[in-house]
């Protein structure tokens, strides 16, 4: 069953077409990710579905309710974590959870929620004294105070250290285990790959591809990836494309990335060429393609932080 239904959604700001005719469905119980660089239109899209922004045209339905028309009903059933929104500094974790809880008809048990989010020890701590990871867990706890059916997470792990990020992934998976549907945005490839059941890759307001992470990789990459890391910068020339059997390649600083279905031939030929140029290498890896490779192929650029 489709929980979120978006059809031909458009939104512009002045001359900028922020969302340019996208369509997708999110199914019940899945974690659906909008993946793309900053400015791709992810946040605009998610905020239109949350009812925060008006759309220009298109269909946006949540649990078969028209978001624009039935906003008050929609708000009761969704939980939202906004990108870069802060807390009320001088309230404690428990107080702010109680406050938000009082806004809803249907309420989750605050104690259990704090326990699930690993915040029980911080119940009496002022929100301004929480660490980045704790703040983010609180933001997610706030999104769950009404025991929502659909949870929206806008860049939930941005700015967190790797450990805090991984612990937040566990939290997000636990939301899915409670039979809730999750729509999240991210610009972390790894996050999208390990967390999402399905991904829509967005750039310039359009969806470039949409599928499960594995299908995306299988569809766009039958070839293997060869990465060679040199001890010095290598020129960003198209010389590597001259190597027979190479599908595509990128030279980026000290890192050379080659895609091919004939890894052995290509690798030996490349190392031969490198030896002729007197380049020495630090590391050579042959691996299956990842989502990042798909993204690179679709958008022509890496996501930079």
């Amino acid at each position, binding site marked *: 069953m489709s929980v979120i239904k978006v059809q031909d959604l458009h939104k512009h700001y002045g001359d900028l077409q922020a969302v340019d005719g996208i369509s997708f469905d999110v199914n019940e119980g899945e974690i659906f990710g909008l993946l793309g660089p900053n400015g791709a239109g992810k946040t605009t899209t998610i905020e239109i579905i949350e009812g925060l922004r008006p759309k220009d045209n298109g269909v946006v339905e949540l649990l078969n309710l028209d978001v624009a028309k039935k906003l008050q009903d929609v708000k009761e059933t*969704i939980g*939202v974590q*906004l990108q870069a*929104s802060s*807390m009320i500094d001088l309230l404690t974790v428990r107080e702010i959870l109680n*406050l938000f809880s009082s806004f809803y008809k249907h309420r989750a048990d605050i104690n259990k929620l704090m326990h699930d989010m690993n915040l029980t020890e911080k119940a009496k701590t002022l929100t301004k004294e929480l660490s980045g990871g704790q703040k983010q867990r609180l933001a997610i706890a706030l999104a769950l105070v009404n025991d929502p059916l659909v949870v929206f997470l806008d860049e939930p792990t941005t700015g967190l250290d790797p450990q805090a990020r991984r612990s937040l992934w566990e939290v997000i998976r636990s939301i899915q285990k409670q039979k809730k549907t999750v729509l999240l945005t991210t610009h972390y490839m790894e996050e999208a790959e390990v967390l999402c059941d399905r991904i829509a890759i967005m750039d310039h307001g359009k969806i470039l591809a949409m599928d499960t992470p594995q299908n995306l990789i299988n569809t766009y990459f039958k070839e293997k990836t060869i990465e060679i890391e040199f001890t010095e910068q290598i020129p960003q020339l198209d010389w590597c494309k001259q190597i027979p059997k190479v599908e595509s390649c990128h030279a980026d600083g000290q890192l050379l990335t080659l895609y091919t279905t004939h890894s052995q031939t290509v690798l030996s030929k490349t190392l031969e060429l490198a030896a002729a140029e007197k380049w020495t290498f630090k590391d050579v890896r042959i691996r299956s393609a990842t989502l990042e490779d798909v993204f690179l192929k679709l958008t022509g650029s890496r996501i930079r932080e």
Partner: protein
Amino acid sequence: MNKTLKLLQANLLELTRNRAAIFWTIMFPIMFILIFGLIYTNNDTSKLKVGLVVNDPSPVTQQISDSVAKIPVFEIKSGTQADLEDQLKNGKLSAVIIFGQTFSQDLAKQKAEIIIKYDPGSQTTAQIAISALHAATEQINQGITQVKQPVTVVSTSVQAQKTRQIDWLVAGILGMSIMQLGLFSSAALVTLREKKILRRFAVTPVSRIHIVIAQVLFRLCFGLTQSTVLLITGRLVYHVQIDGNILLMYGVIILGLMMFLAMGYIIASLAKNEEVVEPLVQVFSMPMMFLSGVFFPIDLMPKFIQPVIKILPLSYLNNALRAVINNNQSLYAIRMDITVMAIWLVVSLVVAVRLFKWE
């Protein structure tokens, strides 16, 4: 309703933890009162104005009067008893010394009295005057007779009925504090907006009207507390009395708070970020602070500026507060001030609703 109360409760909880806000809104006006009070009290001790009424001129009264006049801190004013007592009640004099019409006759009977009337707010003056009189009369007592104390000093405290400077000033500082509290509510709103807490509220079922009502109720609670603390301080330290109806006074305070809160919302709409809020508030509040008769009477302002003063909302709030607190005026007497404030409130509300940005 529950949502509003919970928001109000959260606001109050926050306030109790915000020491800076408490300091600036409660301690600051109190310090103003104490400092300005000191300046006036200081006036009192550097040159104490003492009225002298001699209803029975004689060498003895002349002698005593001279010895009182010799006290360097006294500035002696003479006049009729009625006139000087009136000045004492107006707070223009600290004390009045009276020699009765029968002073000489009584002195002959060895039971003459010198009466000193003083304002309880000027205890120090009274003490100095009383001991000076004692010193003066002691000489006479010793010189005239062996019988003890033919001249006694009788002191009575007279509550000033009419406005003293400090009464007038406390009412003005009350008006100023109400203005500041109302206008500075903009800072909290801008913070809520800039930290995207209003956006976070927007994705919950809580409506904007709940948020606004909670904010207004919160500011009213805060403002009424501030006003009460201010008035109690004035009462305890400088014996500032509220002559008029207390309910009417609080009514005026609430109207003033609402009016300046609405203007605070306009400022919050104009301010793009938290940094520009304070300068903006000063742009609005500074002219009123100096022109609307907080520290100097409006009549003292130059003529060309009077039209400006006539449109400033604080002028009307101060006027109404002083009318009620200092002069025991009725609601009917301040109807003009109330009307102008109500107009300001409605106009500000309309502008605020039009301008206010939730994001």
